[in-house]
């Protein structure tokens, strides 16, 4: 399969009051078309930075980061599901989900039909006309996921999308997310702090070093699909999370020592 996301010796430096600060360095990564790739790493290693560059919210200061085959007038490049949901409080569920299409100038009837379809898929049919303030955290994040998917981007970027949710809601949403993904097999870049989540969702798990962030190891997750939560009880799953944790442990220690 061809590469969808390519990063070559990518570098990102921030200018701060204390001088230049390197967030990413020598960052090499290829994500295949249709792959679900999970990115883990110690806090502050540059995961969000990389994702923001892909999302077009920031620029690499060196090297190359691109999405192939590049911009297409018919399909947006990459849409983000933010950790803080970032669903607009002033829009109803319907208008939140239709937001991307509206920005692209899709006509009212068509975009609302599409939005309705995605709202059905994330089981919010009863809540189409609700405002986010009337929804729980899990429901808001479903809106955010539907908003990104309804826009049908080439790549879906998720930055700790379930991080703020309680464990049960989180487990339910992980399964729902996998079902949605099985239907579309979109290229996904998924940042998470949870090793279990990374192994459960991903085709591969990329472990990053502490800052400045580079790729430390890539672990292939060869668990069969479609997966459900029962896979977490298998010895294969345990072995994989163990391998990720082995790679991560030293980096977390280093990051903590640096912050101390």
């Amino acid at each position, binding site marked *: 399969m061809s590469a969808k996301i390519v990063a070559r010796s990518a570098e990102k430096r921030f200018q701060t009051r204390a001088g230049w600060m390197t967030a990413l360095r020598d960052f090499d990564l290829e994500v295949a078309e249709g792959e679900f790739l999970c990115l883990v790493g110690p806090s502050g290693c540059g995961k969000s930075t990389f994702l923001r560059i892909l999302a077009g*919210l920031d620029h690499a200061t060196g090297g190359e980061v691109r999405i192939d085959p590049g911009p297409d007038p018919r399909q947006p490049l990459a849409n983000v599901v*933010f950790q*803080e949901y*970032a669903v607009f*409080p*002033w829009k109803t569920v319907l208008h939140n989900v239709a937001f*991307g299409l509206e920005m692209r100038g899709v006509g009212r009837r068509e975009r609302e039909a599409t939005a309705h379809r995605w709202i059905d898929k994330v089981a919010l049919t009863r809540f189409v006309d609700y405002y986010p*303030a009337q929804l729980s955290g899990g429901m808001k994040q479903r809106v955010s996921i539907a908003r990104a998917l309804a826009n049908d981007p080439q790549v879906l970027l998720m930055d700790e999308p379930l991080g703020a949710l309680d464990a049960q809601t989180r487990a339910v949403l992980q399964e729902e997310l996998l079902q949605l993904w099985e239907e579309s097999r979109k290229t996904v870049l998924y940042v998470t702090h949870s090793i279990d989540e990374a192994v459960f969702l991903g085709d591969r798990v990329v472990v990053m070093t502490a800052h400045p962030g580079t790729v430390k190891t890539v672990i292939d997750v060869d668990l069969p699909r479609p997966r459900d939560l029962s896979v977490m009880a298998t010895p294969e799953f345990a072995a994989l999370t163990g391998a990720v944790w082995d790679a991560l442990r030293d980096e977390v220690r280093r990051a903590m020592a640096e912050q101390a």
Partner: protein
Amino acid sequence: MPGSARGAGGPAATAWALPLAVLLATLAAGFAFGLWATAWWALLAIGFVCVVLLAQELESRLALRWRGPFQRGLALGFPLSLLLIWELLAGAGILNPRWFPPPSQIAVALWELTVTFDRFNRSSLIGRPWLVPQVVSEQGWAGVQELVRESHVWATLSRVLGGFLIGALPGVLIGMVMGLNRTVRMMLDATMSAIYVLPKIAIFPILMLVFPNPFGEGPKIAVVAISAFFLVAISTMAGVQGIDKVYLEAGRNFGASRWQMFRHVILPGALPIVFSGLRLALGTALIVIVAVEFVRADRGVGFLIYYYWQVLVTPRMYAALVVVMALGVGLTALLQWVERRVMPWRRN
């Protein structure tokens, strides 16, 4: 604490007996030892606490479905009983009726003010709307205009609304630009903040010089407009800057153009703060206009207050105060209505 008594639901007779006893004792002591003259504030405080305790105790004994009506009753009943007490105290001569005329007298004065036409000043409170049919048949629209012009309420209302709109709309506009553009913000912020703290009534003399007719409506509307402008501009700027960055990023990530960004993210995101600025500005507009009418007007509710104070017809002065309150309440309700329409997502 009545809270614990309510929680236990116990038969604590003391829960109401004690505050009631204290209340009666306080009142009795107040009259017996002539404490009202010197320690009225302490008696009032003790009395108020007792009344609160009694009301809470009473509420805890009510069935759940009666508590809502009970609380609404309190909201209405408490001010009504204050009025009643005022009435009684003024009637008994404990409050000097010259300075604190009983509410009944104020109500009568309000009625008189409404129905009478002041021949000397050629004015009336609300413009005698019951004359409209007669005037229209005799003089046509010119007559109606005449009636409108004689109305004190209309004079104040038109100045407040006119000035508020003339000031608030550009205020929102400039505030938006200041919130969005750093250069503009840097250039204007210090100046705006300096003028913001200036009591706008202080520039009224200047405004009188600026306008060709210093005694006309121009300076009065202008001073209201200026007061509203700075308040609204500064809060709009704060509203725009206070928008959570994550919404701006979401907008950008979904490809919003500049205009779409403004229309779908910045405008609605800033609205709550814009409206709190508008509420402030409306209140200020009312203060400013009453002050201006004290000084320089022959129409307007502020003029009425000052006039009846000067001629010592205090019931009418109070009546005019009541009208100002009604105007404030009405205008605030109007703004809240607009607010609910414009921001349906904040309804609950």
